[in-house]
């Protein structure tokens, strides 16, 4: 697939949208900067190194930690279900709902569930899934997918939200955010009380204790996982970490990187169903561990670091391309730099071949990544793979020829100098890689110099000898 150029143009040309993205990401950038500075967190870089090392170790020993996690979840009275695909995950939930006579479930925010189109799969079988995170709820009503990993409705203003509530729920057109929130809470509170299943994601799965950790700010995840009779957590297999004490590293990084909070408002540690002596908690607990392509990524020793991601969204906030084109122009639910590196790995580099190239390689993403994924390096690797795929398909011949010619000229100084003396090394070659008109569509073309530096140096040397 080529880049969705018309949609990108539309996003660029929408001043209201541009302002919404710019303002929201600016705020997230500033908040993060305030809580990772040397004065506030002098050991921030140490934490990043530690997080990277823990993730590397875990991903390289994933089989061991998944088995440990499984046995500990079972020991707490929970169930573990390994799901190869999103369909398998949805089928399990549909089957369970049927057995327990459940017609409605509540959900807290989960990108993993977005990834597998969980709600759509359930709704096809008349099982209603209600999003309870405010942003996700707004988007569910508006029939949109998340715009951002952490702030799903980042692109909507309060006026947009007012319109959605009016159109979809018949609410009064209310533009005061506090009143909108109160209204949504009233609707959702009823859903929590009616639902028999609560579905959550998981930020971390702790192997040595069999607990799952969910971080959030609204309290809806806590309600989703404790009010209904049954709690189902869906998580990618890469979410496992070895020990509870590793959270000292990850919790310190996640909230800071995501929203600029030292910790999120709620951090829930959930370890299975309610024990006989407890008064709260679900009767049944299921952990759905999703592969959905992740084991495919494990095979590449360099690119497997993509699985270190803790979904903080910092790379999106800092990405000048994301901040221009927005979340919906990316082909998958994961947008921004992390989306640009994982989408081709999950879907194949022959799909959406434009994606790894949609970056100026500025490196802002890698600089803020709390687990130090080398995003620009992986983008270049993926570009190489795209070029190779195109070569095999006998496509992209002109570009390949241009770079071969470029390399030939650049290693034949006499030819280079000849072309340079004609003022035509840079201009005839580069425009063929990407036509000159593409440059000129946005910018004035610089005049080639009358005299190259090579020529100046040669004439100067002649003059002085």
């Amino acid at each position: 697939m080529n880049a969705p150029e018309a949609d990108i143009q539309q996003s660029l040309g929408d001043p209201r949208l541009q302002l919404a993205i710019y303002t929201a990401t600016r705020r997230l950038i500033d908040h993060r900067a305030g809580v990772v500075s040397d004065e506030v967190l002098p050991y921030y870089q140490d934490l990043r190194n530690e997080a990277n090392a823990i993730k590397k170790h875990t991903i390289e020993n994933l089989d061991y930690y998944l088995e440990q996690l499984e046995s500990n979840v079972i020991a707490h009275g929970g169930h573990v279900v390994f799901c190869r695909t999103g369909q398998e995950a949805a089928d399990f939930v549909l089957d369970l709902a049927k057995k327990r006579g459940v017609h409605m479930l509540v959900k807290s925010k989960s990108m993993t569930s977005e990834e597998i189109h969980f709600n759509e799969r359930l709704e096809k079988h008349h099982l209603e899934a209600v999003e309870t995170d405010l942003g996700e709820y707004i988007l569910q009503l508006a029939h949109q997918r998340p715009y951002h990993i952490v702030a799903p409705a980042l692109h909507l203003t309060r006026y947009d939200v007012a319109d959605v509530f009016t159109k979809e729920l018949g609410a009064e057109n209310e533009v005061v955010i506090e009143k909108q929130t109160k209204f949504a809470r009233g609707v959702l509170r009823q859903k929590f009380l009616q639902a028999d299943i609560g579905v959550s994601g998981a930020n971390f799965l702790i192997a040595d204790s069999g607990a799952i950790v969910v971080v959030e700010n609204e309290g809806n995840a806590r309600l989703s996982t404790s009010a209904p009779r049954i709690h189902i957590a869906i998580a990618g297999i890469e979410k496992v970490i070895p020990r509870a004490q590793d959270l000292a590293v990850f919790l310190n990084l996640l909230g800071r990187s995501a929203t600029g909070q030292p910790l999120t408002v709620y951090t829930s540690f959930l370890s299975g169903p309610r024990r006989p002596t407890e008064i709260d908690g679900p009767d049944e607990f299921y952990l759905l561990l999703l592969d959905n392509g992740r084991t495919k990524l494990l095979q590449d020793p360099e690119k497997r670091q993509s699985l270190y991601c803790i979904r903080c969204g910092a790379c999106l906030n800092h990405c000048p391309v994301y901040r221009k084109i927005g979340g919906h122009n990316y082909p998958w639910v994961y947008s921004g730099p992390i989306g640009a590196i994982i989408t081709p790995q999950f879907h194949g580099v022959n799909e959406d071949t434009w994606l790894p190239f949609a970056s100026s390689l500025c490196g802002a993403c890698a600089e803020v990544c709390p687990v130090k994924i080398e995003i620009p390096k992986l983008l270049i690797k993926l570009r190489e793979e795209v070029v190779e795929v195109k070569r095999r398909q006998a496509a992209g011949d002109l570009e390949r020829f241009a770079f071969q010619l470029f390399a030939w000229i650049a290693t034949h100084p006499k030819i280079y100098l000849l072309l340079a003396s004609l003022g035509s090394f840079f201009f005839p070659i580069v425009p063929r890689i990407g036509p000159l008109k593409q440059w000129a569509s946005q910018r004035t073309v610089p005049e080639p110099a009358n005299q190259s530096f090579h020529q100046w140096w040669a004439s100067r040397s002649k003059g002085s000898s």
Partner: protein
Amino acid sequence: MSTRVSLFVTCIVDQVYPQVGIAITEVLERLGYQVDFPATQTCCGQPAFNSGYPDQARTIARHFLDVFRDSEYIIVPSGSCASMISHHFADIFEHHPALLAETHRLEPRVWEFSRFLLEVAGVEDVGARFDGIVTYHDSCHALRELRIKAGPRKLLAKVQGLTLAEMDVAEECCGFGGTFSVKFPEVSGAMARTKIDSIQKTGASTIVSIDSSCLMQLQGVIDRAGLPLRTLHLAEVLASK
């Protein structure tokens, strides 16, 4: 005897901005260096490397290694090209032990121009005079790969008549990104315009950077919009009298 330094001007300075190479030569000679210009030099290979053509990049990088094998100091008027040589040659020669060893011998001899002035020549004040308000654009690879941030500002601070006005998004990308600028021209242009909006708020009339490619991008958008702004390489400011 004066120290000999070798100039690698980069293809863009050679072809489009020779005045930057001339300015560097002037500044270095003024400081007493003997400037050498290996005439068989061409390009560092970054366009090919960043576009997914490692074989072609490797070919060009080998040529570079040959040309600068005997140079003690290699002065580069670009953070991006300097970083290509000192950081990414090692990537492209990862599976070529002999060339990788040669690259590692080369790396400490590669000097981005402003860093050379501060860390080797040991000067902050090169005796320049430039009247006006300027703002400094942090180019991405200089900032994030070479960790160059304060250095150019120190040099600018010593220029007589010059006032440095910081923009609020100095660290944000100008949108050039090599072939990105022609593969995604609208996005690239929009990024530059954001940068220029920020620059206009500073009251500066000149944008200074250590990368001519960023300046080509910004100047292109400035000229298209007909704005009263100009771009100059740091070397041009430091060569001003």
